[in-house]
């Protein structure tokens, strides 16, 4: 049963149990999503079989809904801002980790990774208190600040993995050729880790764009897209429109994720 690929000649004829299990699980994973996509194209307000015929009307309805479009725009803004900040901070921490030794290095590193093990609701509550203490009204900004914190660990892990493979002797060579340290970073280190930075940015972007648990706590009158969708779920008649909206978002995130994956693989 545990015959590895390398020992195959010795293996008796295998029954493809594992392959079958994989296929079954994949089918189960995709089934709910496929069903949703089907219902987003089905000419019936109620999501039930039998199907009633093909329509684009829910997509048209979603795109014609100004609140939905505004919410999508809000999400893009928040995701853009928070992902750029998170990636920049992650790059800084990664360079510090790989190129400097200093007291407090472990502290900084664990502080940057710790958001991974803090449940989102605790972080949401904590930030809610912070903004109340600072007398800052909830808005897209507050959501954005929260998203930088949760995206930072993911971005950091991606960039650290790449920068760990860059030889420090390249820095030395650059310095010997007369470059100051900033120039060395800008002309030698950053170009080498650029694919990882881009991949980290895309991951941070998608993480923010899809994030709901923190956004629900911290969004002000302007909702992000998941908050908007959640608010509309109460109305059963809008379900098909929401599903079409979510399907379009899925197509968008998926494209970004695939691009990120390709970049990561190349780096």
């Amino acid at each position, binding site marked *: 049963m545990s015959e590895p690929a390398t020992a195959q000649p010795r293996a008796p004829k295998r029954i493809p149990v594992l392959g079958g299990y994989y296929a079954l699980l994949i089918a189960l994973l995709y089934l709910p999503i496929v069903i949703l996509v089907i219902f987003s194209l089905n000419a019936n307000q109620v999501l039930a079989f039998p199907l009633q015929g093909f329509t684009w009307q829910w997509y048209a309805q979603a795109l014609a809904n100004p609140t939905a479009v505004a919410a999508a725009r809000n999400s893009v803004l928040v995701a853009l801002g928070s992902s750029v900040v998170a990636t920049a*901070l992650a790059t800084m921490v990664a360079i510090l980790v790989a190129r400097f030794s200093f007291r407090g290095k472990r502290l900084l590193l664990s*502080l940057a990774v710790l958001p991974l093990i803090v449940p989102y609701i605790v972080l949401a509550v904590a930030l809610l208190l912070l903004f109340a203490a600072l007398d800052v009204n909830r808005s897209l900004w507050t959501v954005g600040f929260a998203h930088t914190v949760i995206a930072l660990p993911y971005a950091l892990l991606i960039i650290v993995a790449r920068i760990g493979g860059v030889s420090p002797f390249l820095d030395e060579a650059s310095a010997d050729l007369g470059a100051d340290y900033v120039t060395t970073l800008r002309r030698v280190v950053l170009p080498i880790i650029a694919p990882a930075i881009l991949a980290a940015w895309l991951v941070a972007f998608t993480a923010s764009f899809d994030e709901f648990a923190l956004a629900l706590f911290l969004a002000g009158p302007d909702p992000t897209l998941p908050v908007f969708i959640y608010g509309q779920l109460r109305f059963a008649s809008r379900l098909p429109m929401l599903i079409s909206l979510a399907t379009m978002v899925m197509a968008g995130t998926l494209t970004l994720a695939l691009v990120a994956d390709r970049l990561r693989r190349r780096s």
Partner: protein
Amino acid sequence: MTTQTPVAERAGPSAYRAGAGRPTRRRLRLDRNVTFWGLVIPPSVWLALFFLVPLVLIVVISLRPDLRGGVLAGVPPTLDQYQTLLEKPAYMRLFGTSIAMALGVAAAATALAFPIAYFLAFRAGRRAGLFLALLLIPFWTSFLLRVMAWKVMLGSGGVINSFLLSTGLTAEPVAFLLYNRFAVVITLVYVWTPFVALPILAGLQRIDPTLFEAAADLGSTPARRFWRIVLPLSAPGVIAGFFMCFIPTVGEYVTPLLVGGSGGSMYGNLIQDFFTKAANWPLGAAMSLVMLAGTLLFVALAIRLINPRRLVG
């Protein structure tokens, strides 16, 4: 964060070649110093402001009798909120239930993910990359969409029920599928299984294949090889996957909100209520802290189990 040893000083070509009176090393050190502070200050300040201080604020607020005078009012600390928590066993019971649910979800997701990871590591061959991508695509689709999908699947007018009705298997819609703990657990297992497969896969890929040959040469059976080689050596990955699912699930409040109904709510929903409807922030803060402490306890346990040094090698 005051002293640093630039790489240039430790070892490397320039350390040997630098002739006396060459200014470059001094300058390099100086601007490395400047760069160091430029790199250290922004992330430190950002994380302190948006992560550390907020967590401290939870502690501060949880020691307040009420919120009169605002978040920053100087009130002598009290343990009232924690006493309230002890007096209301229902809250702590819900916390226990949530931990039990999270353990169950994590265990189920790990059990479902392990054969997948095993397949990808040892059986998929050249197409492993494609198979892996196929597994991860659902994880990259909107979380809300995936949860909504289960609402549509399990609802009384939903897919499973309309299928059962149209085939005549049941005369009435089956109501027990949605709006309970069962629905929450099913949905969360669905959401997490592909993700949990990743660390397990990483763990399996680190196993040296020659170990299998050695074991086979020494006459061990495949089952024995599985128990004595695969399982122990992949344990760090399995434990990591388990906790990557467990931690977010303990703090879950969104999935219960969507598919849990009133009977399926979790400890996180209680916290959410105290910060929204009930507007009792100090009690909510105390409850959040209890959750954080519980989670960190489990993580400490996990780190002891995994022994990170083994993961690095």
